[in-house]
């Protein structure tokens, strides 16, 4: 079965990103397909490659990146939510004339249409939020 996962909250403050990760991992282990993971609102902060959590804590961005690499996941960050919060990839850095980028290469920036498409193309859309 195909799932799309929507996450609305940032890392470490809310459990949403952790719950979504555990769900995605379990779904893949059971042989389901994750069509897309969409990071919306504060959830765009899950995509920063600059976070340095304490060594005995989980690194949520790296967890997602590793899961995506192992399973070829499409992880999409909402562009409007990302720009408001200073989350940029190299293309957006150049386009906006900024001096830095911070989005992990396992994630890509795109628009809300990708969420709508995920809802249409998947059998289930599961939301994790606050």
């Amino acid at each position, binding site marked *: 079965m195909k799932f799309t996962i929507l996450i609305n909250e940032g890392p470490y403050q809310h459990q949403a990103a952790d719950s979504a990760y555990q769900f995605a991992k*379990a779904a893949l282990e059971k042989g389901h397909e994750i069509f897309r993971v969409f990071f919306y609102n504060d959830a765009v902060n899950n995509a920063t490659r600059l976070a340095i959590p304490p060594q005995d804590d989980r690194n949520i961005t790296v967890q997602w990146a590793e899961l995506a690499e192992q399973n070829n996941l499409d992880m999409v960050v909402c562009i409007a939510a990302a720009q408001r919060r200073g989350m940029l990839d190299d293309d957006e850095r150049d386009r906006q004339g900024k001096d830095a980028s911070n989005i992990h290469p396992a994630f890509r920036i795109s628009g809300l249409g990708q969420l709508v498409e995920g809802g249409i193309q998947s059998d289930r859309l599961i939301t994790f939020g606050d």
Partner: protein
Amino acid sequence: MAMLHIVNKSVFERGTLDSCLKSSLSGSSILFIEDAVVSAVNNTAVSDKIKAELSSKNFYVLTPDLNARGFTDADLIEGIKGVDYAGFVDLVADNSNVQSWL
């Protein structure tokens, strides 16, 4: 097929459990995750409300989240089933759609 309702906030913090109970049809499944696991614990101010719905709806609780908050299966209202993340995935697959009460 029936619908899966997911509640993630404590009944002592938010009104989402009431919204869920009011709107869900009989035959639905209701899953408590994150802080909502306290709704599955017996002998609280809301356990009678849950018990009254047990005959018409299926109640589940995410065991890892229950255990993370210091509760075990022995603390649950009788009739509420504990599931792990694999069981969570099965509930999503076995119901025709999913509503997260945020």
